[in-house]
């Protein structure tokens, strides 16, 4: 019987092919699971009680974490959410804080897919924020309490896929340099700011290239900005200016 031999190049190709096959199968499995819907967890990530106190700034939160080993959940403005034992809460009170128990279903929020059903206005009635509108579903963000209400109302909730949600690529035209900051305050992911060739500072306006979710695009348009959805790669017909 003749033995077959493989060259390194062939072995490499075989290996690559196997990898490709594995990757493809993996992708198919993920898609199938996604298509089935999967389970959206609507419980807090931890069964422990969540507490909150008022803090002035990030430094104070950092000191609490450093000095008391406070396990932070989130800082939201002056509100600091955390997990704490009874002893730790006592220590906080000694230091002048007033820990209050928080409702974890209000504290924790989730981003999920909601299968389209009826008007978006009805969906919003449940206190959810629509991040993106896709052909068959919405991407929404809401507190666990609101999502549970949504589920009780018969909406079908689906978990995010590995690449959800993806912002849209946009071109935003602004008239004045200061308006770039406004776009930034709406948390658009700004890639670059360009000025049409030959324009002077404060002159013909600027073009921002970036990525934004539908709710951000809505807000931009409400505020009068001209927003254009674009393809995967923004055109680059502009000279960079200094906004």
């Amino acid at each position: 019987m003749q033995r077959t031999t493989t060259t390194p190049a062939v072995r490499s190709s075989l290996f690559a092919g196997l990898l490709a096959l594995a990757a493809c199968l993996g992708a198919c499995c993920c898609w199938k699971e996604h298509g089935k819907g999967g389970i959206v967890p609507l419980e807090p990530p931890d069964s422990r009680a969540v507490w909150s106190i008022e803090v002035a700034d990030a430094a104070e939160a950092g000191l609490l974490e450093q000095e008391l080993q406070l396990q932070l959940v989130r800082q939201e403005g002056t509100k600091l959410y955390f997990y704490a034992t009874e002893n730790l809460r006592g220590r906080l009170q000694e230091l002048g804080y007033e820990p209050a128990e928080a409702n974890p279903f209000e504290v924790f929020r989730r981003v999920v897919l909601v299968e389209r059903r009826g008007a978006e206005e009805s969906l919003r009635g449940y206190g959810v924020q629509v991040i993106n509108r896709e052909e068959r579903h919405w991407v929404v963000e809401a507190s666990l309490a609101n999502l549970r209400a949504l589920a009780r109302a018969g909406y079908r909730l689906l978990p995010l896929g590995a690449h959800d949600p993806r912002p849209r690529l946009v071109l935003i035209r602004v008239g004045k340099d200061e308006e770039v900051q406004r776009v930034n305050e709406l948390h658009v992911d700004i890639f670059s700011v360009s000025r049409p060739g030959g324009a002077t500072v404060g002159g013909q306006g600027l073009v921002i290239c970036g990525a934004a979710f539908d709710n951000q695009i809505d807000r931009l348009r409400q505020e009068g900005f001209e927003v254009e959805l674009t393809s995967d790669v923004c055109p680059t017909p502009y000279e960079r200016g200094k906004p």
Partner: protein
Amino acid sequence: MRDRTLILRLAAVAACVWTSDTTARALPIDFSSFHTPSQVNTILADLEAAHPTLCKVTSLGSSLEGRPINVIKISDDVTVDDAGEGDVVFFALHHAREWISVETALYLAERLLNEYATVPQVKAAIDNLEIWIVPVANPDGYAWTHNTSGYRYWRKNRRMNSDGTRGVDLNRNWGYQWGLDSGSSPTPVNDEFRGTAAFSEPETTAMRDFLAGLHNVKTLLTYHSFSELFLRPWGYTTADPPGEPTLSRLATRSIAAIAAVHGHTYGETIGYTASGETTDYLWGEMRVSAFTPELRPTTGGLSGFSPPASAILPTAEENYPAALALIHDAGSREVWIRDYVGDTGAEPSAVWTVSGWSHAFWTSPDISTVPATLEQGATVTLNVHVSNSTGASKAGVKVDVYYTDPRISLEFPNPSAVLIGTTTVTVPAGGLTVSMPWTVPVGANSWGELHWCVGAVLQHTTDMPLTTRAERTSNVGIRNFQTEPLLVGTNLIVAATNFLEIDAELAVVVDRLPPGWEVKVPEPPKPRPGPRPTSIERKARLLRAQGRLLAPDETVYLPIRIVPPPNARPGDAVDLTVHGALLPLVPGQRDAVGNGFTYRVVFDPERLLAQGRD
């Protein structure tokens, strides 16, 4: 058909990964393509193997998913932790998709190592400094952008947020001015999500702790892409930071150095704010000059994050001289001013201890007046002696001289400083004394005392100050002066203002006096009784701070009582030095900033006289 195309594409990618990860380890680095995470690690290992006496690769911590955050240290005595050498730090790839920043960092490391033997400037820098380069600050994000099931344009780290989305923007997670909605997002789904708290991420915590563990950080560059900009603090606001001229001059020189290579002139501003970013932390909490070069290309959409590989070398090449110039500033002492008699130009020249400052760095013998005694309104000659260590004449040295209210913490330049004069001179090898007229201020300073601080700032294109603090740079010297008449009475009024923009504790220490003389410094007020302490009081309690508490911009007046011995005779005198430092009420490193004042106190049967002295 579509599936088949997908399989072919995946096969091509897999083949590419297979071959590239098993190719021979070889230097020089091949910059004809972007490098995968494993290739970056191989390059670092190869650099270490090729230059075992000059570089060492370690990890400064682990990412969320457990990947090491590697740092390559470059120094002549690389295995020694030399407290006497300054540290220069380079970060790259806070944002996962900004691949060109990794290449720029690798290029910098390789070129420094290669040029050690042939370029004297590089040798001097490596001999005098510890240079730290972190090519991938966000290893999980970087891996995700290279993963075939990942996403090439991912920005954040890979934190699984509680809302089910992924990622925290590591360059919005640093602690200075963290949490402002104007420059970061509180919403996890957004790409500028700042995290649940400042330094909530292991990557930023590791970088912060790494910096805190260094002896003397001089400057830092954190490479990003893109837009071709050279950004400086503040990021969180459009207002100028304290010491803006120092940062501005460094940025201007860097931009010129970049442009000189391939003609690309980087811009200076980005047009919007970013809070919780790296350079603000460095300047805001440490007064270390720090910059964000936004690399090529100038503009674009997502494509801007994936420029052609042909852009790597020009980008890295043009950024090298700017980095080298900052490295040179950090390691050189070409022109300088003594902070006190016996100062050798070491940086820092003084450090804060429980006994106060180790040296009275506010008494520069290189700054003096003729006549020595100052009268209000008189025009005197102000002399600034500039030393030159280069052994040759040094042309183009700019000397800026200011005076200011001597608040307990001083910076030069600072927004309230008054420019006395500026001149550009050639300093011969033996040094040079620059003279200029100064009209002594009439009346009291803003806290009612008759003393002032003169500060001199030296700049040369090859030797720039990297901070505004005199004890941290030999390019800045300060000297406190008191005008006549003398302070009368038994109390010296010492005032301190918190200019740090963050809550701080004021520490005041008075040097021990000869036997019999006593000094009584008022105790800080006791904590107020009651259940609702203020934020600053809570922070002080957490840190068990004992000093007086000062909110930003708050000024405190401390009457220091001097009690002479019972047997004191008219004319008896003592020297009294008051040391002051602001210790910020922040987690992590609490970097003391301040200075002091030295008085000669003379006993008179009717009163005590106090006057400023050397």
